[in-house]
């Protein structure tokens, strides 16, 4: 298939309408009834694709958070002075923003990870179910994050 020629014509049309399989059959790829893979920009963002890329972003953020976790443990092992210095940073605006970001990333990655494990086990792959679980993950992330921070501030006697 000649890409430049077809992309303006039936291929682009097929991609727009989501009928990619039909296009691959009509343009000489008849032997393989497999979908083509158009470039990412062609797609309209959808809940399923957004939750997918957020899983990766939150995973990378949590990887950086692990560096911070190690700092926290090493500081605690070094004694009170190092530990208190780190806790002071935790209490600063930047520290709290970082911890808040990591808490959002954690709850999101946890809930969406459970969603992925359910998919791996063969459950919830139908489109309506995938949308329902996607919204559930987003709402659950918000609720758990708020609950954790309200409880933490309550614990500190601020609330």
């Amino acid at each position: 298939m000649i890409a430049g020629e077809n992309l303006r014509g039936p291929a682009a049309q097929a991609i727009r309408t989501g009928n990619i399989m039909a296009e691959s059959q009509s343009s000489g790829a008849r032997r393989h009834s497999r979908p083509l893979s158009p470039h990412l920009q062609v797609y309209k963002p959808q809940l399923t694709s957004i939750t997918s890329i957020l899983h990766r972003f939150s995973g990378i953020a949590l990887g950086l958070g692990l560096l911070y976790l190690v700092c926290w443990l090493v500081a605690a092992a070094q004694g009170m002075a190092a530990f208190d210095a780190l806790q002071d940073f935790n209490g600063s605006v930047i520290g709290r923003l970082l911890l808040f970001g990591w808490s959002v990333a954690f709850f999101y990655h946890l809930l969406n990870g459970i969603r992925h494990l359910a998919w791996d086990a063969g459950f919830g792959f139908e489109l309506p179910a995938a949308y329902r679980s996607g919204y559930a993950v987003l709402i659950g992330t918000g609720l758990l994050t708020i609950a954790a921070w309200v409880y933490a501030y309550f614990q500190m006697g601020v609330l």
Partner: protein
Amino acid sequence: MAGRDENALRSHLGRARGLGSAHEGLHHWWAQRLTALALIPLSLWFVASVVCMAGADYAAVSQWLSQPFTVGALSLTILAVFYHAVLGLQVVIEDYIHGKALKLVLLVGLQFAGFGLAAAAIVSLLVIAFAG
């Protein structure tokens, strides 16, 4: 499925070996899922514990870190989370870094950093528990 799928591009030998295009079979996939499963209770326990200790001072935190249950559970959490993170970040590097040399350097660096940081975390934990 009896016989060969007409659309399959894989050879009979490739199918029998079952190692797939990554040449390592299910190992990466399976390890990522196992560590994910283990991390559901472990990470929830750790985050809940930290949230409950918000505002706690050094004495309270090091007392919590010295308890046998904490040492055991946190060691497992550290092992699982670093293994899981290395597997996940490895895929991110493989997906987006295309230069051969840079990819190799990053993949090796990731493995070293992952295991090195896990060792630092566990040694710190043992120091707090036994020498603190």
